C-alpha cells in the first residue's frame, strides 16, 4: 500500500506534534481560527487520540477580528472540550490601537507581534505551534519546522539549526523558545482537500455570501462593525464575497465569488490566478516585510 501525499503530510504533522509533546515543558498551540488552524487542530486531536489535547490553545486577539471568527472559536472550544487562553495586549487596548487610525504596521506590531510575545512570556510557554506553511511567502520557504527563538523572541534566518530526516532538535536554554510549524509542507490546495476529505468545520466567512463591503485601495473590505470610518463618497454595498484568508477585518480583503460549497471553493482554488496572501494588506508594506516582521517575533 502506497500512502497518498495527503496521508504522508498528515503523518508528518502528527509526528512533529508528538515530538513536541514528548520534549517540551509547556507547549501551546497558536489558534488563529483560520482554515490552517482548523486543520492543525484536527491533526492534533488525531495525534493524541484517545487522550485529550495535552496543551492549551492560545488566541492572540487583536479586538479587530471578524465577529463570526470569535463565535466560531467559542463554538469549537465548547464542541471539542478544549482549553483556550485568549490574550489581548492590554497596553495596546489601553492606547486604543486602531488599524484605521494608526495604520496596519503599528496595529500588527502592537496587537499581534507584541501581544504574542507578552502571552508567551506571561504563561511561560516554551514551544508554540503555528499553522504557517512554506508555500505562503518567500521567506517562509526557508524556515525550519522547529524554528528557534532567542529569549527576546527573535528569529535569526542566517543561523538556523540544520534539520535532517525526522530528527527535530527541541533543546533550548531557559527563556528561549521554539516555534513549530507542523503544516510546513502543506500547500493551500492540500489544506482545502484535507478539509473536504475529513469534513473539518471552518468559519462560514470562507464561503461566499452577500456581505457589506467597500472598495478601498483596490481591496474589498467588509464593514463588520461600526468602528470602520467611511471615507467621503464611500458607501458599503452588498456583494457576493468570500475570504481566502482570515485575520483582522480591516486588514483582510474579500474576493468576489459565488463559491458557497467546498467543492466550489476548491474549484476556484484550482483555477485561481491570485495567491492567497494577496488579500492580506500586511505583506505589501515593503520589500521583504514579512522577513523583517518574523525576525521581530511575528508568527
Amino acid at each position, binding site marked *: *500500500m*502506497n*500512502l*497518498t*501525499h*495527503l*496521508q*504522508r503530510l*498528515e*503523518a508528518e504533522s*502528527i*509526528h512533529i506534534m*508528538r*515530538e513536541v509533546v*514528548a520534549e517540551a515543558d509547556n507547549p501551546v498551540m497558536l489558534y488563529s481560527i483560520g482554515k490552517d488552524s482548523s486543520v492543525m487542530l484536527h491533526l492534533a*486531536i*488525531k*495525534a*493524541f*487520540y*484517545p*487522550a*485529550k489535547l495535552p496543551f492549551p490553545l492560545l488566541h492572540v486577539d487583536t479586538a479587530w477580528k471578524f465577529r463570526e471568527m470569535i463565535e466560531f472559536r467559542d463554538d469549537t472550544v465548547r464542541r471539542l472540550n478544549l482549553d483556550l487562553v485568549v490574550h489581548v495586549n492590554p497596553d495596546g487596548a489601553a492606547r486604543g490601537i486602531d488599524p484605521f487610525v494608526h495604520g496596519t504596521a503599528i496595529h500588527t506590531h502592537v496587537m499581534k507581534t507584541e501581544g504574542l510575545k507578552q502571552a508567551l512570556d506571561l504563561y511561560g510557554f516554551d514551544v508554540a505551534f503555528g499553522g504557517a506553511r*512554506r*508555500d505562503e511567502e*518567500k*521567506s517562509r*520557504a*526557508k524556515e525550519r519546522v522547529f524554528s528557534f527563538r532567542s529569549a527576546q523572541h527573535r528569529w535569526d*534566518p*542566517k543561523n*538556523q*539549526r*540544520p534539520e*535532517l*530526516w*525526522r*530528527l527535530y*532538535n527541541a*533543546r533550548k536554554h531557559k527563556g528561549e523558545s521554539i516555534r513549530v510549524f507542523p503544516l510546513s*509542507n502543506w*500547500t493551500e*490546495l*492540500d489544506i482545502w482537500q484535507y478539509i*473536504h*476529505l475529513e469534513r473539518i468545520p471552518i468559519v462560514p466567512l470562507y464561503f461566499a455570501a452577500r456581505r457589506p463591503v467597500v472598495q478601498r485601495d483596490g481591496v474589498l473590505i467588509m464593514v463588520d462593525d461600526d468602528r470602520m470610518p467611511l471615507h467621503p463618497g464611500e458607501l458599503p454595498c452588498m456583494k*457576493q464575497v468570500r475570504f481566502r484568508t482570515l485575520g483582522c477585518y480591516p486588514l483582510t480583503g474579500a474576493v*468576489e*465569488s*459565488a463559491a458557497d*460549497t467546498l*467543492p*466550489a471553493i476548491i*474549484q476556484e482554488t484550482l483555477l*485561481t*490566478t*491570485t*495567491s492567497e496572501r494577496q488579500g492580506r494588506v500586511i505583506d505589501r508594506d515593503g520589500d*521583504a516585510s514579512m*522577513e523583517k516582521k518574523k525576525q521581530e517575533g511575528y508568527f
Partner: protein
Amino acid sequence: MPQPSAIDRDTIALDVEDRLHAHQHKGLLRFITCGSVDDGKSTLIGRLLYESKTLFDDQITAVMADSKRWGTQGEALDFALLVDGLAAEREQGITIDVAYRFFTTDRRKFIVADTPGHEQYTRNMVTAASTADAAVILIDARKGVLTQTRRHSYLASLIGIRRVVLAINKMDLVDYSEQVFRAVETQYRRFADQLGLSDVIAIPLSALEGDNVVEASEHTRWYHGPTLMGCLETLPLAQEQRLRQPFRLPVQWVNRPNQEFRGFAGTIAGGSIRSGEPIRVLPSGRTSRIGRIVSHDGDLDYAVAGQSITLTLDEEVDISRGDMIAGIGDPPEVADQFEVTLVWMHDDPMMPGRDYLLKIATNTIGASFTGIKYQVNVNTLERLAAKRLDLNAIGICNLAVDRSIAFDPYANNADTGGFIVIDRLSNNTVGAGLIHFALRRSHNIHVHHLDVDKAARSAAKKQKACVLWFTGYSASGKSTIANLVEKELHAAGRHTYILDGDNVRHGLNKDLGFTEADRVENIRRVAEVAKLMADAGLITLVSFISPFRSERRMARNLLKPDEFVEIFVDVSLEVAEQRDPKGLYRKVRSGELRNFTGIDSPYETPEAPDIHIDTETASAIEAADAIVRHLTEHGIIKSPLLDSIDEDLTQ
C-alpha cells in the same frame, strides 16, 4: 455577480469531485537540486513552478518588479528571484540556505529542496538530501563535470540517494550539440559508477529557454528520453523501498489518558504491522502481541511505513519513549559502539573524546567519538588522517554512546540508522551521521564480574572512593591546595593519590601538545585514570587546568554522582599573572609559549562547581580546610572521629 445556475454548479461539483479523487491518489516525490553557483538552478526551479502553473498572477507581478530591481535577465522574467527568498541573500546574489518549494502536476505532488552550490555549504546540501527521494544535479554543458559536481554526487550517494537526474543545462549556449551532451554524460557516468550511483538519467536542457523541461524540445531531435518533468513524474518513490523493510516503530510518546488505556505512539520507520501480530521490544528483548491499532477514525487492521500510529499490546510490557517495537522475526541490533560516517556542521570542530548528545530516532543519549579513522576529501574522495573534524568535514569515526540502543545500519533504514549530534552547552545541532555497523554487540558483552569490587576495596581502606577535581587557571593554586588536602587526608589515615601535570604530562601523556584537540585527549586520559583509581578504592585528587566544560562533564559522567567533586580554584587572570611562580605567563607575553589558557586559549568557568574557592581572599591552608570540611559534611569522606566511633562500636 450573477449566481451560477444549478446545472453549472452541478457540473463544477462533478468536475471537482473527479479532480479531488485523482489528486488524492497522487504520490509525493521529494527531490533536491544541486549545482554550482552559475548553473542556473534557481532558474530551473522557477521554470518548473512557472510551467506547472503553480505561480499566481500576483507572484509573477511581484517577480516582474523584482526582476527590474535585482534581476540579471534585463527586462525578461528572472525566475531565479522566485526562489531566492531572503532579502540579505538577494543582495549577495546567491542562495545561502535550504528553501523548500512546492508544485503539483496531474500525476504527482513535488517538494523541491533548493540547495546551495556555494563551497562552504556542504551542511545545507546534506540537510536537504536527508529527506529526498532523488537528486537533480545540474551541469553547465559548457563546463562539464566540475569539482562541485563530484562533491554534490558524493554527498547525494552518501545520504543514500540512489536516483540521479543529470540535468545538462544551458544547451542553448552549445548550439544544442549532441556531441557535447554525450561527452558530458559519459564523463559523469564514469564518475558516478565509482560512487555506486547506477541509476542516472541524463537530460539535455535549457532552463532559461524551457527546452525539455516540460515539453520535448525541437532543438534536440536527437534526444529520445523523457523531459525533466516527465522523468520526475515517473521516478520510483523511496517509500516503496521502506515498505519492504522489517517492521520498526520507534516509540515516540506513551499515550496514557487513564488507567485502562496504554497506547504507544510513533511513526512506522519500516515495514507494516497487523493487529494480533507478535512483536519484540528493544533493547529489553521482551515480546508481546499487537492488540489494537487505534485511530481517531476507528481501529485499523493494519498500518504501513510512514504512518503515524498508536497501538496497544495484548500483554503489558514496560515501554517508554526511545524503545523500539519490532517484528519478531527480524529485530534490529542492539549496541553501544558503532562505526559511523559523520558530517560536521558547526564552526566549533568535533574533538574526539568530547561529550555530545546524540539524537537517533526517538532517543537522546550521551555520546562521544572515540576516534577518527579517516577524513574524506569531498572533492577527490581521498582519505586523510585527522585529529578533529572542522565545519563541513566528513569523517569515518568510532562512536560510543552511554547506553545500548536498537538501530539498523543506515543503508537499510535511514530512520533507525541516521542521527544528529547536539552540543550540550549551546544546544545547537552540530553534526549528522549515519551508522554503518556495530563495533561490538551488546549481547556479546559479558561484563567480567570481579569478586573484589570498588566497594570491597574501599571498605578495606575504611573510606569511600571519590575523585576531587581541581580546575582553574595556571598559578591559581590548584596543586598547592590539592597537596594540603592530601596531607590532611593522609594524616587521617586515608589512601589518596594526586594526578597532576607533573606526573601525567611527562609520562602517560607525553605525546600530547597544547592544541585544543590535544587538551581534550589529555583530560580524557586523566579522567579515565582517575576512574580506575577510584575503582581501586582511592581518594583521587586531580589537579589540571581542564579549561573546557564539556571535558569536565565527561569526567563527571564516568563516575557515580556522589563520587565526583568539582572544585573551582578561582583567581583573576591579573593576580595569576602577578604570581606566575613558573614564569609561564612571562613566556606567553614574550611569545615563547602559545595556546595558553586565559591568554590565547579559552577557560570556561564552571557554572555550578561543588566547591568554589576564591584564592584572592582565602589562604591555601584555609582553602584546604574548607574542602575537607565540605567533604566531611557531605558524607563524601567520613569524619575521622565518627569513623573511630564506628570502629569502637563494631569491635
